[in-house]
């Protein structure tokens, strides 16, 4: 696939030197070279695609999925854009050219410019913020930089992004759009297989399954893990979509977000681990250790457990104090 693509790319680039700007047919072949019908923009091809005269319009999404930039809206918007783009191609696989309608309709091509792959394109357009959706209408201009001037930009609103994007595109082009949300067959198949196997297992090992379902260990484990996750900010990560860690410039990695109302996803793991260990040690202290028969061993283990609790609790306080609230208490200074 990749090879075909690169050959095509070389071809169209060659063509573009002659005619300056890709024709619809050329774009079409590029689009169909890939499973995903949204073109990935790279620094090699943005000029042939956008420069010069064209009969079609082009919609470009500028976004980034890199964790350094941590653009929440990008992550939210990107799949929706791809759904809209793919749905359009599904409705019009070869554009309007072979349709014998009277009025000449313009084709639309959807392009996705990922920041990492198209740095030069971003500099050319002097983009300071993402995400952006830019619409390049058909143009007659011949000059190489004309494309930078005839742009209209999509306004991001709160709401269902697909519908909002479509209504904006309808305004810009006058076409009607349908949405086909792709059916994830592999997921359905996996689910079906799992259900089937699950049913088989239940049927075959019904007594064991019953024992498992009524097992106190399973339920206590489940509840306690749930509690640990929720009390260490798991829902915060889910709702806010916070990054795992923050990679700063110069390769430093920041693991703990400052501020009481903020955290990174890794913090949930660290903190739930600390809480879990403390709880386990505490339960060992009150349940298991008193049953040890030899008092010297008991003394040793009790002291060891208490010391561990102390050390881990101190670490917890150091982490908490490091969140920058002016918290005055520490057991051990870091």
């Amino acid at each position, binding site marked *: 696939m990749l090879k075909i693509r690169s050959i095509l790319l070389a071809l169209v680039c060659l063509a573009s030197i002659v005619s300056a700007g890709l024709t619809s047919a050329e774009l079409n072949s590029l689009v169909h070279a890939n499973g995903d019908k949204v073109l990935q923009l790279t620094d090699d091809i943005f000029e042939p695609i956008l420069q010069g005269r064209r009969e079609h319009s082009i919609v470009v999404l500028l976004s980034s999925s890199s964790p350094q930039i941590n653009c929440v809206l990008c992550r939210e918007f990107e799949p929706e854009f791809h759904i809209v783009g793919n749905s359009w191609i599904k409705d019009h696989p070869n554009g309007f050219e072979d349709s014998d309608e009277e009025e000449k309709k313009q084709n639309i091509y959807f392009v996705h410019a990922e920041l990492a792959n198209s740095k030069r394109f971003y500099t050319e357009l002097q983009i300071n913020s993402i995400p952006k959706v830019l619409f390049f209408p058909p143009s007659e201009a011949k000059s190489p930089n004309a494309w930078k001037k005839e742009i209209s930009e999509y306004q991001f609103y709160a709401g269902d992004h697909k519908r909002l994007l479509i209504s904006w595109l309808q305004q810009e082009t006058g076409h009607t759009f349908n949405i086909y949300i792709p059916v994830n067959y592999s997921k359905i198949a996996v689910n079906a297989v799992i259900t089937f196997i699950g049913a088989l297992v239940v049927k075959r090992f019904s007594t064991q399954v019953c024992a498992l379902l009524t097992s106190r260990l399973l339920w206590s484990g489940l509840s306690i893990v749930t509690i*640990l996750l929720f*009390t260490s900010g798991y829902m915060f990560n889910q709702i806010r979509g916070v990054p795992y860690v923050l990679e700063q410039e110069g390769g430093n990695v920041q693991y703990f977000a400052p501020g009481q109302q903020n955290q990174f996803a890794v913090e949930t793991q660290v903190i739930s681990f600390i809480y879990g260990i403390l709880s386990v040690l505490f339960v060992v202290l009150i349940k298991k250790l008193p049953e040890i028969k030899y008092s010297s061993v008991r003394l040793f283990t009790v002291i060891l457990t208490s010391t561990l609790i102390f050390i881990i*609790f101190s670490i917890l306080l150091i982490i908490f104090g490091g969140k920058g609230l002016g918290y005055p208490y520490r057991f051990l200074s870091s």
Partner: protein
Amino acid sequence: MVTSKPQEKLFGVRVETIRSLLRVIIFISIAGAAISSRLFSVIRYESIIHEFDPWFNFRATKYLVTHSFYDFLNWFDDRTWYPLGRVTGGTLYPGLMVTSGVIWHILREKLALPVDIRNICVMLAPAFSGLTAIATYFLTKEMKDSNAGLLAAIFMGIAPGYISRSVAGSYDNEAISITLLMATFYFWIKAMKLGSIYFATLTALFYFYMVSAWGGYVFITNIIPLHVFVLLIMGRYSHRLYTAYSTWYALGTLASMQIPFVGFLPIRSNDHMAALGVFGLLQLFSFGFYVKSKVTGKQFRNFLVFSSIFVSFLGVSALFALTALGWIAPWTGRFYSLWDTNYAKIHIPIIASVSEHQPTAWPAFFFDTNMLIWLFPAGVYLCFQELRDEHVFIIIYSVLGSYFAGVMVRLMLTLTPIICVSAAIALSKMFDVYMNLVDVLKSNGEDNSEETGSGKKSKAKRPSTNDKLFSIVSKLAVLLSFAFYLVYFVLHCTWVTSNAYSSPSVVLASRGPDGSSSIIDDYREAYYWLRMNTPEDAKVMAWWDYGYQIGGMADRTTLVDNNTWNNTHIATVGKAMCSSEEVAYDILKKHDVDYVLVIFGGLLGYSGDDLNKFLWMVRISEGIWPEEVHERDFFSDKGLYKVDGEASKTMKDSLMYKMSYYRFTDLFGGRDGIDRVRNQAIPLSQSPKLNVLDEAFTTQNWLVRIYKVKDLDNVGRDLHSATKFDESANDMKRKRIIKKPALDLRE
């Protein structure tokens, strides 16, 4: 731990008597600690009602004690939500006001103590926190024993998670409802254990009180049925359960429908359907057990299969049909936002905008409960070890409570009690094990005793002195370390309460350049100005956060307030704030607005001001007028939220921007103004001009600015040219001298 025989005596007094005496003393000390740790704000500032909602509750209470109870229930308030008004009597939970009203009457008429109603309102929450501690004691006692109960009571008394909502002056529904929550749960456990109609009736009674006091009663409405449901699944159906639940459900539901605001919700809204469903299920179970006792096993099995299919089909189709017919109200938005966490973000910006509805990061949990948070899972584990019926309740409450608290910061409040209870169970178990010195002492006194009396399995090898020493040392090590943690816990709670939860937010603390502390009282200065200088029927427009305060302190009519029942009306105010003067003037005139009030923290460095809330105003009004208001327009070209020279044109033209920075640069003597909240410079050349408003009053530290809406021009000019004409005519007019106050906001 050690159950004493009735004959045991100490100094000639029965041990049981000494125990109860000690218990009473401990209760009094706990209540004392709970109340006194909530008094920081009264001592530092004064006896004042805090924040926003309490001001409405206070105003309603005043109405209640000056009018009759029936007047109060029928109260139509025409001084808020102008011009709509609000059916206040039918849209509030009267429990809180009635409670303080009753206390006021008792003190005044029975005890001849004419206390100011304000002081009762201020002190109500601390007083009830003492009662909460006692209710928690009884609840925990049902779970383990009275030792755990006392620990739980202490934790409940000083845990910051609960203090945050019950400091003196925070006169809000939560102040009394946590007490009621704990009491209801205690009576429920008692009723379920004993199968007692008496206790079930008490549960219903306290449930009714809870319904009358707080919308959070839905938590009880769902958790008790869930408890019963889980018990049924576990095969623990009993007649005790049947009696307790049926009594509670029937009485509680009927009673809750007496509250005007609740009305027929318990039989119509889906929030309450679980309770009804479990009620029906219990009847089926009971019927099933009856049939089982009458027929053979095979017949019963057929009966079971057939009837369960039939009943579940009937139930599901009835639910769908009733919802489709509109007999059952759709689930409320706040309820949705608990489960589908994206729902609020997309559909209801007004819910998403409230900071209490934000998800909770882990530091908040630790901040509010400290070491209890890691004792909590251990306590849940211990509950699993025993797993009596009441322990199932603790487990369900723990899991659900953790989820809710994780989704919404304010629900930390409902999680805190269960954290206290289960941590107390864990900790008291530890004390049981390590404070038990019986084996050490016994072998000391009676060398010839063969077994150690504490019921341990240790084989009767006579303990040597070495063993004893080891045992004592290990016990001491554990006890001392936990005593140390407990002391630290108290320090933590005091620190948190004193630093984070004791600010009235109506009065701010500040620190002068020389370190002396003083008080910033701009809010009350502005409200008092309104009260004294404006006509009694003047309409004041402000963002909804300040509605209750304006109503309570300035006694003026407001357009919107913290009871956010009408989103469109709030969006209208938001639109007026974020659109240009011409558009805004039209809105202001149509709503008879006389004064506009904005909070501006740029001079003082107060970050909770209107410009920082501005984007929410934009978002909320964008939800209603997507064509006219665009959030994007308020960002600079680079996509940043800017107020300086780079601010977008829409931003600079908006009424909010103009009102905030009007004459701001005058303070800086010919240089650019510096906004200390956003750390941006307001260019002198772009100092905003106002055409449709006149500056009426600005408080000492510029925290509150009040503008008067100009009348239509007498000779029919538009206000723009009229202002221009006035300016040219009054060029000679003396400029108002304004001085910059030298104050720093204390964090």
